[in-house]
């Protein structure tokens, strides 16, 4: 990887600024151009025509939360594997054994989660 004349993240910065401005324009376009006629029933929440009974913000299942936790912990595993994969040929046997131990420990965690039924979507 030779030293590039321009920091490779400068185009990313340009695209980031443009993407954000473009997103704001697209999001605000019809709100600016379109007509605005206020009408009480039009601005209510859409419930297939049935008037709402309880507020939308009631509690819901803890399953989503458990998925997010396991996502973080296995995401870190992916990150470690990426780091190992990048310099794999220089590490050879020693690196391979290290990562096998790493994967075995995490598979124990994975088996525990599956057996414990944290991923059941009943």
């Amino acid at each position, binding site marked *: 990887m030779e030293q590039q004349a321009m920091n490779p993240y400068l185009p990313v910065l340009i695209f980031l600024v443009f993407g954000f401005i473009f997103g704001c324009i697209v999001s605000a376009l019809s709100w600016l151009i379109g007509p605005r006629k206020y009408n009480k029933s039009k601005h209510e929440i859409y419930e297939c025509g049935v008037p709402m009974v309880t507020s939308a913000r009631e509690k819901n299942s*803890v399953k*989503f939360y*458990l998925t997010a936790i396991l996502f973080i912990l296995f*995401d870190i595993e992916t990150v*470690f594997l990426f780091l190992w994969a*990048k310099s794999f040929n220089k590490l050879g046997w020693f690196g391979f054994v290290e990562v096998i131990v790493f994967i075995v420990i995490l598979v124990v*965690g994975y088996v525990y989660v599956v057996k414990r039924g944290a991923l059941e979507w009943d």
Partner: protein
Amino acid sequence: MAEVIVFYSIASLLVFCSIMVVTRKNPIASAIYLVGALFLVAAVFAFLGADFVAAIQVLVYAGAIMVLFLFVIMLLNIDPELLKSPPMTAGEAAVLILTILSFIVISVTVFKGQLVAPVGELTTQEIAKNGGNTAVIGLALFMKYVWPFELASFLILLAIVASVVIAKKDKKKLTGDQADAERNMVGDLR
């Protein structure tokens, strides 16, 4: 010259976002500002040439941990009236001003401090020569820091087991009345 502009814009945005995280009433608003702050910290890392750590910061922090925060906030969805905290008493205000002053003093002394001569030899040319930022970190991590790497996987295993045990309610163990007591106290979080 362009370097100074880019750095100061990133730094000022980052400070603005972190102040907004602390002062917002609605937790989802402060979560989104924290996502912005984490993105800008990744920008500082990219600005410093630490490519791999910047990508990991966005992937792990802004992409995973903050999703968990958002899910928990949505899951608990507390109505805003409950979040009203009583106004600040005189004592608290005094402590607030004291902490702000002490932090200003610390940052000034840091800004004036002496620079230490570089001890290592991995200058940016050196890093670029042997394979770029990621390869050098990879080699160092898997050669020099073997034990921290294995302990990290053990720590993740602990976190998996702990979070599943704490968060997942075990219906079988709860006896009849205890289960009902817990259910009617909070409303059943299925």
